[in-house]
């Protein structure tokens, strides 16, 4: 896993913005332990399942808002601001007030996953609210690891249509999560 906190994060997201899926996956995997560390250190008492839901919610927010990063600025201040905002927001939606200081990002150790929430997780519940086609696409690519061309062949859709449906599905997922918890 690439280290968090060097210029490579900028490079990864820059490449991702050019359509490089692998760099984007690397970027998301690189920042996940950091997000998880913040969520756990702020909400330890809530249990790791809920913290992991908050990690996913935050990652979805970063995904939806990735175009608000200006490529000529370092990615970390942008990233920290989003994580701080979303983690505080996610805990508030669950009736808990937490504070996240920017210093926390330097001090918090990246946390590794030791839970594997599947059916019980919010994500699974929310995917159930997507339309059939979007849900199938999100599951096929996420759970089964299919690629966009594979899905487009299996579902008899063009690649563009698959990407559009995936994009809409994730957008809806990000929006629904916020509302379903409140």
């Amino acid at each position: 896993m690439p280290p968090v906190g060097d210029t490579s994060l900028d490079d990864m997201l820059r490449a991702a913005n050019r359509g490089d899926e692998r760099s984007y996956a690397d970027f998301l995997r690189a920042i996940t332990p950091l997000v998880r560390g913040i969520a756990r250190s702020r909400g330890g008492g809530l249990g790791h399942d809920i913290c992991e839901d908050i990690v996913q919610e935050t990652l979805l927010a970063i995904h939806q808002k990735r175009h608000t990063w200006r490529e000529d600025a370092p990615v970390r201040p942008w990233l920290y601001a989003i994580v701080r905002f979303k983690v505080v927001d996610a805990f508030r939606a669950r009736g808990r007030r937490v504070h996240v200081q920017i210093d926390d990002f330097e001090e918090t150790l990246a946390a590794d996953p030791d839970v594997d929430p599947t059916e019980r997780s919010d994500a699974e519940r929310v995917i159930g609210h997507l339309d059939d086609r979007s849900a199938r696409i999100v599951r096929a690519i996420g759970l089964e690891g299919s690629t966009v061309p594979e899905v487009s062949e299996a579902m008899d859709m063009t690649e563009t249509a698959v990407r559009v449906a995936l994009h809409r599905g994730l957008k809806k997922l990000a929006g629904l999560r916020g509302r379903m918890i409140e």
Partner: protein
Amino acid sequence: MRTDDLIRAMSADTTARQPVEAALPGAVLLIAALAGFVFLGEMGVRADLASALGDPLVIVKQLFPVVLALGAFWAVVRMSRPGSAVPGAALLVLATVPVALGFAAIYEAMILPQEAWGMAFVGKSRVECLTYVVTMSLPILAGSLWALRRGASLHPALSGALAGLLSGGTAASVYALYCTEDSPFFYAVWYMAGILAVTALGALLGSRLLRW
């Protein structure tokens, strides 16, 4: 769904989205042009516009809403990006407006006999002014909020207020082309009242619509 599965799904979604600064100017200018076309087409530009613009008080009336709109635009675009501060220069631009209105009012107080002050303030068209400024602002505000929803403001109500200021300022600068009330006692109060009403509405709508 495990976090790693979610990451796989997200990384396959490479659909790019326009940033706020790409969508907002077009939305504002297009809607303002349409609203202005309808309004001025119906009501007409003041007949003496060219000669009136020789009067510094008319220039202030015409320009202060434009300056408000530009300052608000600059600030709201910055606020749509997490981690970047609102530039002090944008606030400075906004701050020139009350200063300019203050100087205009002092100048007016010196040239206008005191008996006429009340009349200048009350004017003949304050209801008209408030109605048209607010009405023209609404579609612009709707377009601005639509464009701003793709941003990620950490302060949705404040961003909404700036969108209102941007919309109110734009509408007032169009209205000023028609309006013949040139006393700062009038426009510093009634134009500003219309603009601030839209700013308050923007804050209210923003706190709901600009959450993410």
